Structures are given as structure tokens and as C-alpha cells.
């Protein structure tokens, strides 16, 4: 009767439930999915606080290391490692660039911490001004603070995509290269898992290239690293999410809500934080190389929706790079965008948002399922990883794994 009561497994289980509820007979049950989303939120809050604490602890350790002579650094690291929790150990390779020197690690960690602070502030801000300022302030502000080169460390963080250095920007390659499946220098590993409809914003999306490769590396501490479709995923990500040509342009997000009473589709502008796609070390999917069956499309790509029509890829998605994806997205459901939501764990749950898909849950509209129900039993590995990793890596404010569009 025992089960792993850790945040990560709960998140993946919850995602699986939400996804499988789409194909259940009788339509999506609003009540059950609402309850599952609460579990997701709780697990996410715990996950966040754990990571934050670990990051801070890492930061403290590095500060101590700094005062040590350099040749002691490795010892310190070795010393620190056993004391780490599994999650902390997972942090290591990603954050610090598995095996890179301490010099690279230290600013990276510090940078992460700094960004975490900023994200926290941004969340709180956005929570307060949610309805007044739909435009994302967070990303811009965070972008301003993100130095180039340190972004390699961001692969671990669900930072705003705008935080990532532009395509091809010079960076200290060492944090990234070990993460890449191939030797080619790839853009920063932190993907924008989100393709805003806004062309302005799309420019800000970084090219998520490394996540599938990164994650297995990161999960090395937890389990033998697998490389689930690394190259193709990278290619996909690059294609789907245009590389940022500009750094600091804030990203906007749009979410689309279907009101199942009036059948009106409305698009809501919202601030949000990009998530790291597949950057999390903790994704069980990456770690085991197998996607969770029926893992929901977590926040990620947007998707155009018209009532009564099949879902179609958004214009911004570079379908060309998607390669094998058949028209109509039958084998791949791009991940949905993260929804912004209050970050502060102490905030009243009443203030938290429910994914727009909740509004669709009641109708059970199968149009939101990107593929036919019978093929939902074999979701493409890509999709499963993407969603779970996004969920796990997300520091963004979202409680529900499924965001409409």
C-alpha cells in the first residue's frame, strides 16, 4: 500500500489522470479534474519549495567554496554530494554543467538563485496585478537581469524564455555541452515550451534544444540516463519555438477558453513564465526513457481552436521542422502553455486559476484531444516527456497540467 509520496511522482500521476479523463466515457468530469488539479498544485508547491531551499543551500555551499583554495573545490563538491538529497544531486549536472569547473558552477548557481528571487517577486507581483496588467512583466524584468552565458544554468530553472540568451550567443559552453546529445553547440538548453501567438513574443522564445538530452543527464544521479529521442526532440523544439532574436523582449501568453455554455472562444492575455521543457532532472519520463502513458499535454504550445473544427497547428509552429509529425497533429500534441498563477504557497487557493481546459472539461469536448481517442493509448514519447518535464520543471504559476491553447 505504500506509494512514493514525493511531489514529482504525484505530479506525473496527476497528469496521467487528467489526460486519461479525456477519453473516459461520459465526458470529462469537472469535479474529479478539479480535485486532481488541487493535488497538482500542492505537489508543485512542495516541489518548488524544495528546490528553492536546495538552491539556496547550494548557493551557501558555493560561497563557502569560494573562500577555499581552488584545489579544494572538488573535495567540497564531493563532500557536498553525499549530503545532498536525491533531488539536489540531480540538480548538479544540469545546474553546474556536469563536471564543469567550479568557476562556471558558482555564477550559474548564483544566477539561478537570483532568478528564482526574481521569479518569486514576479509571481507575487503578477498575483496582485493579475487582472490589471495582463502583459507579462516578469519575463522582461527577468530578462533584464539575466546575463548572457549564465543561462546555461537556467536549464534547470523554469525561467522565462526571455531569460535565455539569444540564439548562438556566446556562452560558456561547458555547462551546456555535456547536456547535449550531440557535439554540436546548440542554443541554450532552456526551451521556451511555449509559443505565444504574439509574433513579438515568439521572437523572445528561446530555442529549446537540449531538454531531452539534458534531462537524462540530470537524472543520472537518480537513474541511468536515457536519451529519449534527443536529436529529434531538439530539432522539434528548435523548429517549434523560434529562436529568440531579441533578448529582453517580454513574452506574452495567450490562453484560450471555451465557454461550453455559450460556445464562445475567448482568448485571454496573461502574463506567464516560460517553462523549461524537459529540463527538469526529476522527470520520471526522462529518467526512465519512457513516457508516461497518456501524460497530459502540459503547459506549452498554444494551439488554435475553433469550435467544431479539428485542432490545427498554430501558425507560429514551424511545422517544417517537426518532421515526422503528420498533418493534423495526429501523433503529437504540442504541449500547452503554462498558465500563470499565484506562486506564493501561502496565498489563498481562491486566487489560483484553473486551467482553461476546466471549462472544456465540463463539455467533454473531444476536440481538445489532439488525436483520436483510440490512439491516445500510445502517445508519442515526445509528448509524454514534454508534458511531464514541463510540469516538473515549471516554476511558472500554473496548477493545472492542461491548458487549453
Amino acid at each position, binding site marked *: *500500500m*505504500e*506509494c*512514493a*509520496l514525493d511531489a514529482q511522482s*504525484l505530479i506525473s*500521476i496527476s497528469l496521467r*489522470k487528467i489526460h486519461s479523463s479525456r477519453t473516459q*466515457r*461520459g*465526458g470529462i*468530469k*469537472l*469535479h*474529479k479534474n*478539479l*480535485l486532481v488539479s*488541487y*493535488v497538482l498544485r*500542492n*505537489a508543485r508547491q*512542495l516541489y518548488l519549495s524544495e528546490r528553492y531551499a536546495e538552491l539556496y543551500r547550494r548557493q551557501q555551499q558555493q560561497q563557502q567554496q569560494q573562500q577555499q583554495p581552488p584545489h579544494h573545490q572538488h573535495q567540497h563538491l564531493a563532500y557536498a554530494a553525499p549530503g545532498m538529497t536525491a533531488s539536489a544531486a540531480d540538480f548538479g549536472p544540469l545546474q553546474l554543467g556536469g563536471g564543469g569547473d567550479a568557476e562556471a558552477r558558482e555564477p550559474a548557481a548564483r544566477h539561478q538563485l537570483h532568478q528564482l528571487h526574481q521569479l518569486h517577486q514576479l509571481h507575487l507581483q503578477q498575483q496582485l496585478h493579475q487582472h490589471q496588467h495582463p502583459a507579462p512583466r516578469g519575463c522582461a524584468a527577468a530578462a533584464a537581469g539575466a546575463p548572457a552565458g549564465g543561462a546555461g544554468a537556467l536549464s534547470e530553472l523554469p525561467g522565462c524564455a526571455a531569460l535565455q540568451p539569444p540564439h548562438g550567443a556566446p556562452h560558456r559552453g561547458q555547462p551546456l555541452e555535456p547536456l547535449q546529445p550531440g557535439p554540436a553547440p546548440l542554443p541554450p538548453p532552456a526551451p521556451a515550451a511555449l509559443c505565444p501567438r504574439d509574433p513579438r513574443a515568439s521572437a523572445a522564445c528561446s530555442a529549446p534544444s537540449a531538454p531531452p538530452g539534458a534531462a537524462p543527464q540530470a537524472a543520472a544521479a537518480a537513474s541511468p540516463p536515457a536519451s529519449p529521442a534527443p536529436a529529434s526532440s531538439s530539432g522539434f523544439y528548435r523548429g517549434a519555438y523560434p529562436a529568440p532574436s531579441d533578448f529582453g523582449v517580454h513574452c506574452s501568453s495567450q*490562453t484560450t*477558453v471555451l*465557454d*461550453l*455554455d455559450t460556445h464562445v472562444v475567448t482568448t*485571454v492575455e496573461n502574463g506567464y513564465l516560460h517553462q523549461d521543457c524537459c529540463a527538469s532532472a526529476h522527470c520520471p519520463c526522462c529518467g526512465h526513457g519512457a513516457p508516461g502513458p497518456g501524460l497530459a499535454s502540459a503547459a506549452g504550445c498554444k494551439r488554435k481552436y475553433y469550435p467544431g473544427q479539428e485542432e490545427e497547428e498554430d501558425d507560429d509552429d514551424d511545422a517544417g521542422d517537426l518532421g515526422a509529425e503528420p498533418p493534423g497533429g495526429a501523433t503529437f500534441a504540442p504541449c500547452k502553455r503554462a*498558465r500563470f498563477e499565484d506562486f506564493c504557497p501561502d496565498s489563498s*487557493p*481562491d486566487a*489560483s*486559476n*484553473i*486551467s*482553461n481546459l*476546466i*471549462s472544456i472539461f*465540463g*463539455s*467533454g*469536448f*473531444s*476536440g481538445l484531444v489532439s488525436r483520436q481517442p483510440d490512439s491516445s493509448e500510445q502517445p508519442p514519447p515526445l509528448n509524454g516527456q514534454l508534458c511531464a518535464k514541463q510540469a516538473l520543471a515549471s516554476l511558472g504559476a500554473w496548477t493545472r497540467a492542461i491548458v487549453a491553447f
Partner: protein
Amino acid sequence: MFLKFSLRSVFYGAGGGNDIQWCFSQVKGAVDDDVAEADIISTVEFNHSGELLATGDKGGRVVIFQQEQENKIQSHSRGEYNVYSTFQSHEPEFDYLKSLEIEEKINKIRWLPQKNAAQFLLSTNDKTIKLWKISERDKRPEGYNLKEEDGRYRDPTTVTTLRVPVFRPMDLMVEASPRRIFANAHTYHINSISINSDYETYLSADDLRINLWHLEITDRSFNIVDIKPANMEELTEVITAAEFHPNSCNTFVYSSSKGTIRLCDMRASALCDRHSKLFEEPEDPSNRSFFSEIISSISDVKFSHSGRYMMTRDYLSVKIWDLNMENRPVETYQVHEYLRSKLCSLYENDCIFDKFECCWNGSDSVVMTGSYNNFFRMFDRNTKRDITLEASRENNKPRTVLKPRKVCASGKRKKDEISVDSLDFNKKILHTAWHPKENIIAVATTNNLYIFQDKVN
């Protein structure tokens, strides 16, 4: 097919005190362990006199049992329940506009009080409520002039005399016919129906709205509660159950997934979004977990017969509320507290979402609810004693009183106790009903209906 087991349990001799001793009476349903999904019982309800017992199942069928009228002086136990009528209430449907399949599962059955020879009940699935008339036919006209007895028409030229048709007795036939169909009023899944004490109106509740209907009017209903937020992204709770007050025709309550109950007065305004009373118990912070929201969601709410109290069921407990006190329940009973440490596993296997119902006895002194492993629990409000019983074919021999069961939460397991880990979570009792006047209870396991009664000396 229903197999009737007529096992009367007559217990002579010792026993006594005020405690009820429950005896196995009957079990209805298939014997084999292979449960057909359509046979899963989804609702159980006695009518107002207790003579009729209705069950609904996942296949959309309604089966009504009728109690035999026995000579009370002679018999040593109360009459048995035999099949009275079976009919297909709801069929699976498909909503083409939304690409949504509508399950035929009967969510609730509610009886109307009897006004004439016929019986009426409301049955509902996720989207449509139907009013059924169940009537008996025990006579038929015979002696038509133009028709033969088998219905064929006679050649008019052969008719030489005229006669008046007369009614002659026939074998009893029970017919169920749908008299009203209340459709297209609910966007979300209907979870409750409740008939008003005026016997003219009733309410139906789905996840976000409650509608008020007149039993005679099917093309219109009034929306009296709407908790759908303007922006669905702000949704935080849904309606889980609703019921009219048994005596005040203007009062009803509805429970939410957040563990609150709102009492509304329809005289206050047309739209009862603003409650008159809000019943909520603050959460114990030491019990906080990932699943706090789930286990606090109320799965059933029932007024006492007196109308002074109401009972709510959440995942782990039963609470009795005094309508005059909103800040906490007057009584709380733990149904299966030993599950609190197992919530994670129960979440994984979806059992944590099970919606248990609860019911009062006729005098409002005992409440009953179901649990896992085919256990059900009764709590005596006066003596503060509780008992756990099991609905099982194996354990019930004729003429024996049901043996109380005990679950061992941890530590050394005593003889006859069952450890938490050996509980069968697939055997759950979600639906129970108590005869309105007598100590007869109907307990539904997955696909069987058990009837127990107290021992009669």
C-alpha cells in the same frame, strides 16, 4: 437476472438491550464474481412507505422490489422484497455538438409520495431527468365485438349480436411508462435531484448550477443557483449534492467540493447565489496533506427526517450539523480513519474519488454509511456507539446475527480483525438506504443488493 435468496434469520433467545442486532435477510443479484459493468448498482432508494425499493444501475435500468404484505401477527420477520418491475430508464446518448457521450448510468432515483394507485419516481442520468409512472394492471377488458380475443379484427359481416365488453381479472402486470422527460437543462453532470415538500416542484443539481422544475412542465426550468465564475479559470469549487428541506418548501442546501454547505432560502431572491447560511468547519492544520482538498469534498448531504439536522459525508467522516449552528458540526463520526495514512495509494488507484452516500434511520437516531471491503458502518447518535458490518454471501448463514467487524489499523492484529492492507478496495459500498419506518436496510455492493433487518423476537 435476479436470484432470490430467501434466507430468513430468526433469532430466539438471548439478545436484548436497546442495541439492534442485524440479521441477513436477502441478497439480490448475480452470484458470480465477474461483474458486468452494466450491473453495477448506482443508486438505492426506498419509497415513502418503505413498501417499494428501487435500484438503478450503470446500464440505465431501474429495478423495483416490493415488500410482501405478510400477516404481521403470524410472521417472525418482515416481508421479503421481490422484483416488482424492471425497466430501461435511460439509454446511452451521444451529444453530437460537443462530441460527448452521455452515460446511461442512473445517478439518482427519488420517489414521489403516492397520490393515487400509481407510483411515480424521478430517475436521472448525467443530463436528463425522467418522471416514470409505475402502474399495475390486473384487469383487462374482454368481449369486444369487432376484435377477437387475440386482437385480430373480425370480419364485420360475421357479427350477429352485440355485447358489452367487461373487465376480467388477469395476471398482475406492472407497467412503467415515462410521463415526463426533463432534458437539455444541464451543461454539466447532474449529481442530485430532490423533490420539494410541496410535491409540485423539484430541483436538479449539476457541478455548477441548480435548476428548479415543476413536475408538470418539461420545457422550462428556473436556474436558482449558479456558481460558474465569469472566467472559468477562476473555478475553485463545484456543487456536489443538493437537497430540499423536508418540511420547508422554500429551503434547500447544497454542498461543495470544498467541504462547505450552503443553505438557501428561495424567498430571498430568485437567484440563490447568496446563501442564507454557510456551514463550514475550519480545517485542522495538523492534518494538512496533498490530498486535503480531496478528502474534504462532500459527497452526500441528507436532511434528517425532522428537518432540524443535516448530515454530510466526506471521504473519511460523517458529520451531523445543526441547522442553527454554522461554524461546526455537532457530531463527527470517523468512518475509516485508518485510511488517512493510505491516501497516496488511494489516490493512485482512484479510490479517493469514491463518493459515499449516507442515510438516516426513520427516527434520526442512527446514521449509516458505507466503506471498503463491503463493510458498512452505523453510528448511534444517542449511545455514541458504532458498529461495522459486512455485506457478504460467505459470512451470512441463515439464522445468524451479523457479526461486527473490526479493522486493525496497525500493530498486532487480533483474531478476527482485518488489517488495513488486506482490505479489498474494489469492494466498496457507496449506496445504502434505510426503510423510513422500520429497521430494514438495503446495502448495495458492486452488483448485489443486500437486505438486512433487525431480529424480531
